């Protein structure tokens, strides 16, 4: 186990290094000058040059990347060009919100998606099954911005069940998680359905029935843990998909997460923030995959970490 973790961590570090290099290179090639963004429109060419020099942006690529790596090793992600603060501080201040949202969203999509998939599989071929299938496609096809605003309008503005945006209590968390969860729920519902159908055909399910177990026990104790395995692997993949949607949801609900930070940084070529957020999200994805792999043996004892 420890050996496995050690190896995976080394691999993860290499992946992060690769991500940092590619990102840095792409940003370097980007034909948008961060210095102009900093300097503003009244700046004289001299001011622009001064700023460029101070940020070290006049150096060749390799030197810039090397400096970045060296300070990265000491945990320093640099200072934001536009926000003029430590990137670490900016990210740390926003990370809890994003993590919370991610946990909420994953819970939502698992609860909604898995139960939809489960019911559809158990009722395979019925109208319930078909209705759920259409519903899962609606979830996948609906633009998140609209879903978010709609939920907000109905449940916060009209019914006042939840606050209109903001951050703090669990009640703030519900609508944004739901918005993000609805998309993923569609995917999980489809996956769960097909893996559940497969499991329900297995011999051990027949054995369980032959023992005279109740339907609930068969589905939840015998079938579900087996069917959920491919879904666990999906959660690791999911984190990457979230990073795309999080910007929209965070801005609709005024959620102070790193999605908004990243979006503003991209708009204004704030390279240190883009780099920082990229690395953090890459780390999250790598970690998610690792966690998914580590959890798997607890669900299926046949799996050995190697």
């Amino acid at each position, binding site marked *: 186990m420890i050996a496995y973790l050690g190896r995976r961590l080394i691999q993860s570090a290499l992946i992060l290094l690769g991500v940092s290099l590619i990102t840095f290179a792409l940003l370097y090639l980007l034909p948008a000058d961060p210095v102009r963004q900093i300097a503003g429109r*009244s700046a004289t060419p001299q001011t622009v040059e001064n700023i460029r020099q101070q940020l070290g942006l006049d150096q060749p690529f390799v030197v810039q990347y090397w400096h970045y790596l060296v300070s990265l090793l000491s945990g320093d992600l640099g200072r934001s060009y536009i926000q*003029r603060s430590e990137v670490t501080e900016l990210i740390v201040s926003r990370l809890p919100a994003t993590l919370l949202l991610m946990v909420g969203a994953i819970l939502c999509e698992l609860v909604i998606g898995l139960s939809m998939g489960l019911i559809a599989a158990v009722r395979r071929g019925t109208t319930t099954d078909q209705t759920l299938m259409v519903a899962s496609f609606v979830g996948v096809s609906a633009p998140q911005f609209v879903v978010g605003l709609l939920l907000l309008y109905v449940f916060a503005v009209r019914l006042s069940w939840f606050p209109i945006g903001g951050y703090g209590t669990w009640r703030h968390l519900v609508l944004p998680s739901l918005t993000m969860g609805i998309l993923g729920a569609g995917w999980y519902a489809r996956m769960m359905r097909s893996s559940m159908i497969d499991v329900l055909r297995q011999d051990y399910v027949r054995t369980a029935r032959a023992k005279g177990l109740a339907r609930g026990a068969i589905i939840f104790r015998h079938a579900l843990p087996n069917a959920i395995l491919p879904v666990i692997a999906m959660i690791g993949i999911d984190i990457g998909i979230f990073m795309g949607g999080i910007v929209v949801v965070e801005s609709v609900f005024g959620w102070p997460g790193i999605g908004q930070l990243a979006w503003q940084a991209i708009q204004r070529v704030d390279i240190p923030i883009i780099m920082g957020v990229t690395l953090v999200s890459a780390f999250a994805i790598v970690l998610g995959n690792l966690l998914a792999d580590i959890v798997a043996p607890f669900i299926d004892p046949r799996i050995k970490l190697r």
Partner: protein
Amino acid sequence: EDAVDPNAKQGGAITITYKDDVATLDPAIGYDWQNWSMIKSLFDGLMDYEPGTTNLKPDLAESYEISPDGKTFTFKLRHGVKFHNGREMTADDVKYSLDRVTNPKTQSPGAGFFGSIKGYDEVAAGKAESLSGVTVVDPYTVKFDLTRPDATFLHVMAINFSHVVPKEEVEKYGADFGKHPVGTGAFKLAEWTLGQRIVFERNPDYWHKGLPHLDKITFEIGQEPIVALLRLQKGEIDIPGDGIPPAKFQEVMADPEQKARVVVGGQLHTGYVTMNTTMAPFDNVKVRQAVNMAINKDRIVQLINNRAVPANQPLPPSMPGYDKAFKGYAYDVAKAKALLAEAGHPDGFETQLFTMNTDPNPRIAQAIQQDLAAVGIKASIQSLAQANVIAAGGDKAGAPMIWSGGMAWIADFPDPSNFYGPILGCAGAVPGGWNWSWYCNKDLDAKAAEADSVVDPAKGAERDKMWSAIYDKIMEDAPWAPVFNEQRFTMKSPRMGGADNLYVDPVHIPINYDNVYVNDVQ
């Protein structure tokens, strides 16, 4: 000292929302829509404007004197003004603040505004630490020596970049001063939760007795404008900082109760299309004039729900120097075609129109595209992120046409010169500059310098005339096609009090925090 609104009530707290983050509250650096007037409430400069107007008045300065040659400005400072940390502000602080903002290490985007102060070039080049043209005569007197007469200098003393900061606090926080601002302003920073909330509280020692009226202002960050409006309608907030989103505009204006809470005002803003004068076929003035005539500005104004007035010259109507008599190029498709034919393009030509990608800019670009198509010009649209458009504009071969919306923001100060230098003068027509039409007329540069050397306030009208003439001449060359001047529509909660012009204050955006008040206290 101007009078305080007699109806104003003391106390209360309001909430304002913004979509984008507040980057910094350092007056030497902050240059965004959101932080611009926040900084104005935390810090003060030697000069300021009368609330709700563009009229200059002394602020931290009690009075000032201008030498007859217009090259020496002497300011007498107000006594007993205290920083939020309790120390009294003196002339040394003024000098320190200006040395700091011009020092390249500060990386201030506003350093260029101080180019007329003696010794600026040395400081900017890193050869000197201190501006030789700023002299502390005594703790309450500071003297500025300029290299040339500068009529805009009083405005420069009013912009955020020249606001006074206490040295000890700047040194204490170093690069993080922007997160721990300490000034002399009406409010002081009480709380800053990154990415969520900024809270200002009343500065009880503010030198201007009776101000501010509010005890507390909470800025909530990261809220989608449309959601902010929903919250306003529910009474949760007082001012949506990003205004009324287009999708909600009709709804608000259709309801008399809500419409009554909307304040409309002019804005120091012009939306225009730049044409790259160094690039064929826009190197031909006839083509540029034809474009000016081809654009149906009324239709575009309609598209943005009539929230603007059609423009015919670079300066907005509320700017001194605006030429009311100027007729510009009227919408005339036939004439535009004729001009194109004269220029050798009877069948039009193909080109590109760049625009920033936030609504309504791509829509406006499409309207312009259709208008150009009507005269034969096939413009393909490049709808890009702000940074990419700015990059393309600053590249001589980058962008034939750019729709300025979303990027050419409000003037830094209400003076006609502010629309010339960086965006129409030769100084801006350099790689990385903001003169995206690459229009450089040495003649006009000279005339502009001449106008700016008319320092005597008494000759203000004469100077405005000179500027009008400059802009009229520019329009003859037509490097731009001015499209409209945006109007400001600020919506407030029912409890907000104060004169309407405080809510469309030309310099305090979105509202003048120091002077507004709420009706539901006491």
